[in-house]
């Protein structure tokens, strides 16, 4: 943290040109402490921590987050029962879970609340982080339920690892793209992002028909490479969010 008065005080102490005598060092330290004490006393009111904030976000946004995910899961489960080779279509379903996170993450921008929320203690970054934790949790539950259902329909645990990759790779692609969009504040591209996610569902669906080799055991290596790459992108976005939270910088689309 930069502090102009401490900086000036230390500069003037240095200008006196004396070697660091213990008395002088002690005097300088006491001076700095006095300045810091003088600057204290703003935050005398009690404030909640991140976990309390997370439970508040759950209280206000939980229904929307979990309700949308449950709705999508229900629709997918209805479809899965009527499909052949259902494991090949897992990449079609998982971007839909990411797609329904969008209304929750972009809610404040849609309702022009971004500016007001950004000035609060939590700022945009903690709000996004809390929503991501909740939506991510809901996504993992839904994907797990979906995979369990597919395995039950197939009566086999074969290719379980591959099915996990089929679900996570498209999900990570969509989430990384969405977080990058929010970070770069590309407000005008929210709709582009939604279209791209819906398009990726179609793309994966076509790949299941046109590129059957992609879903064979021999292609597992390619899926692992894709997983590592996109997990890296997703991890990078999360690190940037965390860094911005730490530095207290504005994050997200503030209109």
């Amino acid at each position, binding site marked *: 943290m930069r502090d102009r*008065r401490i900086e000036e005080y230390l500069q003037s102490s240095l200008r006196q040109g004396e070697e660091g005598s213990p008395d002088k060092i002690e005097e300088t330290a006491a001076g700095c402490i006095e300045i810091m004490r003088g600057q204290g006393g703003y935050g005398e*009111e009690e*404030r909640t921590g991140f976990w309390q904030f997370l439970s508040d976000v759950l209280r206000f946004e939980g229904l929307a987050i979990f309700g949308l995910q449950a709705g999508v899961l229900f629709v997918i489960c209805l479809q899965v029962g009527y499909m052949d080779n259902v494991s090949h279509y897992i990449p079609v379903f998982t971007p839909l879970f990411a797609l329904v996170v969008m209304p929750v993450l972009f809610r404040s921008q849609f*309702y022009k*609340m971004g500016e*007001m929320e950004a*000035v609060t*203690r939590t700022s945009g970054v903690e709000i996004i982080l809390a929503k991501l934790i909740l939506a991510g949790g809901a996504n993992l539950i839904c994907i797990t339920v979906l995979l369990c259902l597919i395995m039950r329909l197939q009566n086999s645990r074969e290719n379980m690892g591959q099915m996990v990759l089929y679900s996570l790779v498209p999900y990570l692609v969509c989430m990384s793209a969405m977080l990058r969009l929010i970070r770069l504040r590309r407000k005008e591209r929210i709709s582009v992002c939604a279209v791209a996610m819906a398009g990726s569902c179609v793309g994966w669906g076509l790949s299941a028909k046109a590129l059957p080799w992609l879903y064979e055991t021999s292609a597992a290596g390619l899926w692992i490479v894709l997983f590592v790459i996109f997990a890296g992108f997703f991890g990078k976005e999360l690190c940037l969010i965390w860094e911005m939270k730490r530095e207290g910088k504005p994050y997200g689309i503030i209109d």
Partner: protein
Amino acid sequence: MELSIDRLTKHYGRKIAVDCVSTALRPGMYGLLGENGAGKTTLMRMLCAILEPTSGEVFLDGMEVSAMGADYRDLLGYLPQDFGYYPNYTAREFLLYMAALKGIPRDQAKKRVRELLEIVGLQDVETKKIKAFSGGMKRRVGIAQALLNHPKILILDEPTAGLDPKERVRFRNLISDYAKDRIVILSTHIVSDIEAIADEVLLMRKGKLVSQGTVPELTKQAAGKVWELAVSPAEAAQWQEKASVANLRHEGEQVILRILSDDRPAMEAVCCEATLEDLYLQSFRE
């Protein structure tokens, strides 16, 4: 407590929105006046640390505000000019949501929300959805959210827009009481609001801070430049074309013009006391 603004500048491409503004604000009420596009909102957003300046810095008691992060935002109350709301929230739910974002513990938040709903006169409609509110009621909800965390620095962008005269008076009294030991920055086009409550006025023009001072100090600048002239209705139209007419009122068969001019506009013109509105109009005459 001192909020110092040091050569704050914001460029949007080639356009200069705020041009090297420097000042120091201590507890009190500051009225920010300026025409549309003068840079008031940009300045306020930079003071709230949600807009990064092109150059320059804002310090609170010597500490750079962007580096203070959550500690600085904890001291802020902000009402943007155009703010939204979640239509399905009731006034009470909305304020509780904002209290959660401000890190106010739940039990304290409930108490504070009740107090504020009473202060802004919305206690009877606290369970009604905001989407059913009138413009003035929505603005009162906005004012209440800005006051939730007992802010030490309160920044209000056009807070009285859409309020009826009674609500405006109520708001003015509330805010002037609030500014005793806090920094309150208020931007508005309603000069009478600023004249009534501001300890100091900051006049902005084309991104620059052109004047700063108390209302008497500033009106002194317009002293001797405000004239009243009684003319016929036919002459009034001509005067409006050739002079800067601040006001026009009918008295019987005559029209009384309030003219802003460095020199006596006519022999019959009478010099009168300048108001802040006269200074404002004079500053933006060109």
